[in-house]
């Protein structure tokens, strides 16, 4: 990041605008498309500006973890495909991908959005596993929020496959039964650039930022996961403002899920 570009971003913000003409708290156009791939039990595509993310949900019947014998399994994985940016390399998930997957995971897990007890088929023997794969098609900034929104959309889209009496799955036949999903934790990442707070950054703005705070929330009073990132510290005052902005923007994103 050249200092010049960072200075330019800040100077523009001081005049009340961003390099692409948006306001500090303005998202690019957000679009949600459901059922984008038919072999997944649920899927969704989220486009934010030129950023594009697909999430697919696969279900399977597996043994539960020994410490939660009557709970279904939940797994979130993210792949930042080299197809989606010259900055992503082939190979095992980068720390960037792992962070996105884990923060999305915590938003769902900690809010108890999915009632995993309802995913238990036979205690200590058979439970449903919900396997969520987040993949990037094009990275033009703000993968965190796109990944989170696409994940909730894909979970809403998910239908159980038909199961025989001896618990064999017929993946080709979907039932009408949805996941026991009762809440919609939505993540919004607020980025600090100089003294300014912005949402939905472009890659240039991401590179020019000092810090970020991702907040997953169910409403303005219910926060369920957070993650601070970036190279610089944040004050309590800044954190308060970032949370306010995140919960406000989460309402806008949630309205895209209808």
């Amino acid at each position, binding site marked *: 990041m050249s200092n010049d570009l960072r200075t330019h971003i800040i100077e523009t913000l001081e005049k009340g605008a961003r390099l692409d003409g948006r306001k500090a708290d303005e998202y690019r156009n957000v679009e949600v498309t459901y059922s984008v791939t038919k*072999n997944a039990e649920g899927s969704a595509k989220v486009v934010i500006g030129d950023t594009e993310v697909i999430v697919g949900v696969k279900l399977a019947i597996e043994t539960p973890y020994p410490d939660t014998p009557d709970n279904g399994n939940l797994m979130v994985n993210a*792949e930042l*495909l*080299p197809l989606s940016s010259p900055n992503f390399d082939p190979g*095992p998930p980068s720390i960037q991908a792992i962070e996105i997957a884990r923060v999305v995971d915590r938003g769902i897990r900690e809010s108890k959005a999915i009632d995993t007890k309802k995913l238990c088929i036979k205690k200590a023997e058979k439970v449903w596993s919900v396997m969520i794969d987040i993949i990037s098609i094009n990275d033009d900034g703000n993968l965190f929020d796109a990944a989170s929104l696409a994940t909730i959309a894909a979970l809403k889209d998910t239908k159980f496959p038909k199961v025989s009496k001896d618990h064999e799955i017929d993946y080709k036949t979907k039932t009408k039964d949805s996941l026991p999903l009762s809440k919609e934790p939505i993540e919004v990442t607020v980025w600090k650039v100089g003294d300014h707070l912005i949402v939905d950054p472009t890659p240039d703005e991401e590179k020019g930022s000092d810090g970020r705070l991702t907040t997953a929330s169910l409403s303005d009073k219910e926060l369920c996961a957070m993650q601070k990132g970036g190279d610089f510290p944040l004050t309590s005052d800044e954190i308060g403002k970032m949370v306010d902005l995140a919960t406000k923007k989460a309402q806008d994103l949630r309205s895209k899920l209808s």
Partner: protein
Amino acid sequence: MPFKKRPDGRSFEELRKVEAKVGVIKNAKGSAWFKIGDTEAYAAVYGPRNLFPKFMQNPKKGILRAHYNMLPFSGSGDRIRPGGNRRAKEISFVTQKALEPVLDLTKFPNAVVDVFIELPQTDAGSRCAGITAAAMALADAGIVMKDLISSVAVGRVEDKVLADLCYDEEAYEDGPVADIPLAMLPSTEEITLLQMDGEIDKDMLLKSLEVGKKAMHEIHKVQVQALKEKFGVGKNE
């Protein structure tokens, strides 16, 4: 029961529904999306760019690297564990070999052109869909090519030769089956990908090649149309 009718009602040499779009991934130098039936492929080209490790560099010309990958949720059964496997490696390799004959990378010594193929949804014929998408993405990237590459699978089920097999046909169990993924240069009909698994004799193989060529010319038309749409060619004709 003899094989008289295809499960999806197509005639024997008929392709599934084919759709293509060029320029679908903004970050890439060139990109394309190709869908044939329920098999869907994205391809993105990055480069020519620096190639590391250095010992892989060719001082006479740039090299092509193809990366074929089925996404974890793309298969009709269990989730596919990400991270590549022997099948994906081999398909990447034959994809590279299928595309190389039309590329001229002599202007880019020591460099690499990467083509990434990702499949969000599959129902047989995924390597062919990937090659078809990759050829369009390379053209979109402005890489010097003497022709496109068009690709489709053909095969036999019992005494019938079929174009563009779907999974249920590949998996037919009541008689002999052969699955033959093909790719060719449309202008010369030279074959750049040929694999076969199953049971077949030479006469039926040669007949399959002829059926395949006809099918690949159809794929080629769709590729050309998608490229023209991207570049606005032929709008005023």
